[in-house]
């Protein structure tokens, strides 16, 4: 195995490992077969597993996710791809009303072990309908697990956990990270959902980030270190299950919290996290909490405009600097 792998290769690798392990795992989505996916995140699957396990669909988001649900209810472990996370809105009924509710409303009779994978997030100048960070849409719905890995090894390890999960998982792959590289996952690597990672230790402030905001927070932490501010960076990795204990544990040490979110501030996951901290960790804080998040506007196209809207290293550094002076 190569000593580095890209995030996009890690997606295909993660799926392939599970397909080798479990014949119930099948994939469906637009252009995912011989074409290998528009982001090349399913490259090689069709060659290895053939059209009987990797199915090209029409442009029918409702049918893709609805059929994945029906298959999951009847013995398969489908992995459905929705090309861009913006398009989740086309099959929102399945994510909001059907998949997460059927187990509950049938009194536990039916289980839906499926994964909906999707390319999330901005930073690439794709405009307002191909750039959104939509993980918060899913966060409002009880019954969905939400994974959003930041590194290639986590992509593979969390894919294993997601596909093996008996619960439905929405798996957000970040477009801005596809080309990034890192060590590949060791064999049989499984990253259980709901375990955050402390990716940089520090004593002065806790930065909590997700997906592409993790490398951004790490860069900000390096900059802050030059100013003598020692930031701890937590990669949340999942929104559901949410690892609030790791955040509270970090706050016991740093007593300052900044969330770094790509999604709009309004309704963002940081709001949920800081409300837990206010509820259960108020006494740990020596300063107010701060949230760095995207502005509440549709994502604009031009680089200069997009950069204005979504978080940047500068914005994180400025917010942390303010907070440590509090």
């Amino acid at each position, binding site marked *: 195995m190569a000593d580095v792998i890209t995030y996009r290769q890690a997606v295909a690798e993660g799926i392939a490992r599970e397909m080798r392990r479990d014949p119930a795992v099948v994939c469906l989505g637009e252009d995912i077969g011989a074409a290998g996916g528009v982001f090349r995140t399913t490259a090689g699957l069709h060659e290895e597993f053939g059209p009987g396990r990797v199915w090209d669909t029409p442009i029918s988001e409702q*049918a893709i996710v609805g*059929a994945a649900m029906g298959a999951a209810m009847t013995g398969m472990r489908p992995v459905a791809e929705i090309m861009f996370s913006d398009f989740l809105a086309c099959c929102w009924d399945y994510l909001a009303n059907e998949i997460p509710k059927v187990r509950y409303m049938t009194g536990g009779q039916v*289980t839906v072990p499926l994964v909906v994978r999707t390319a999330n997030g901005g930073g690439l100048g794709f405009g307002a309908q191909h750039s959104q960070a939509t993980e918060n849409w899913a966060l409002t719905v009880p019954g969905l697990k939400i994974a959003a890995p930041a590194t290639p090894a986590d992509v593979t390890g969390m894919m294993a956990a997601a596909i093996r999960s008996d619960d439905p998982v929405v798996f957000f792959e970040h477009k801005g990270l596809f080309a990034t590289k890192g060590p590949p996952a060791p064999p049989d690597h499984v990253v259980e959902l709901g375990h955050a990672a402390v990716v940089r230790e520090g004593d002065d402030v806790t930065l909590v980030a997700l997906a592409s905001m993790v490398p951004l927070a790490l860069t900000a932490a390096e900059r802050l270190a030059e100013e003598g501010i020692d930031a701890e960076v937590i990669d949340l990795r999942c929104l559901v299950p949410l690892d609030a204990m790791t955040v509270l544990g970090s706050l016991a040490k740093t007593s300052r919290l900044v969330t770094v979110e790509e999604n709009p501030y309004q309704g963002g996951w940081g709001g949920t996290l800081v409300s837990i901290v206010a509820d259960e960790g108020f006494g740990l804080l020596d300063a107010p909490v701060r949230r760095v998040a995207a502005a509440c506007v549709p994502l604009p196209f031009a680089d200069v405009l997009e950069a204005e809207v979504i978080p940047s290293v500068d914005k994180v550094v400025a917010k942390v600097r303010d907070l440590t002076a509090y």
Partner: protein
Amino acid sequence: MTGATRTPDGRETAELLALYEEMAVIRRTEKAAHDLFLSGLVKGTTHLAAGHEAVAVGAGAALRDDDYVFATYRGHHHALARGATPEECLAELMSRASGLCGAKGGSMHLTKASGNMLGSYAIVGAHLPMAVGAAWSARLRGTRQIAVAFFGDGATNIGAFHEALNLAAVWKLPVLFVCENNLYMEYTPIADVTAVANPAADRAPAYGIPGETVDGNDVVAVREAVARLAGRARAGDGPGLLEARTYRHYGHSRADPATYRPAEEVERWLKHDPLDVARGRLAGLGVPAETVTAADARAEAVVQAAVEAAKKAPAPDPREALTDVWADGGARWRT
């Protein structure tokens, strides 16, 4: 089968009598649901399927026990036809712990997974792609099961209907789409909002699927049509669509008196009641009236006992509200 009469065609007689009795149980269960609703023992809403019995029972007679069935919020008849008991169903409607879904589903979500009746869905059209997925799964597992989605005429104008038909056709899946065309959406005649005469059957050919119509109040005609389409699907010849013309006896939901329906139309359809149609067929086979009356009496007794048992059943433990979100049985979303 008790009460079966030996005729030259004894088997058909016994089968038809059994189908009749099943329809009679469903009819009386719906009547009980209606009465319990009016007396305040059923909360929320109900969408009764009285009048549609021949579709569920006729289709059920043509399916294998391990075939999958998906229904709408108007799904009491489908749950009953797939093995749910009147007691489980009425207890669910009455919010009792012994309800089919532990009183977490209610009238609109009756589900009998052990009978492969995989749910009743209240979002119009949502379950059609699920049935396609179940059929896909059957094919992947090589089981020769088929999946059936029952839906209303109103659902044919929902995007999911069209996506499901196309995907089923291009993947050549063993799925049947069975439209219960009762001429109305909620209160609006389907003909006012659909440009073709048969909202389901006329559209099927556009997806490469054979679309047929059938008298949905004739249990034998439904059984034969479903058996034919199911046979094709099971043999690998792809999906089928059946539009069953039928009529609901009650209003759309709750206490809707359905005054928007012309009196002559109601009268015409009530004369073509599926139970009467089946009675006529039984008489034609030489079955004495007493045999049919005895079946009615058994149905009555079953439903009466179900009502009494459901009334006596306890309410669910409030703690049940926090179970069954996740596969581990719980609802925990954070550490």
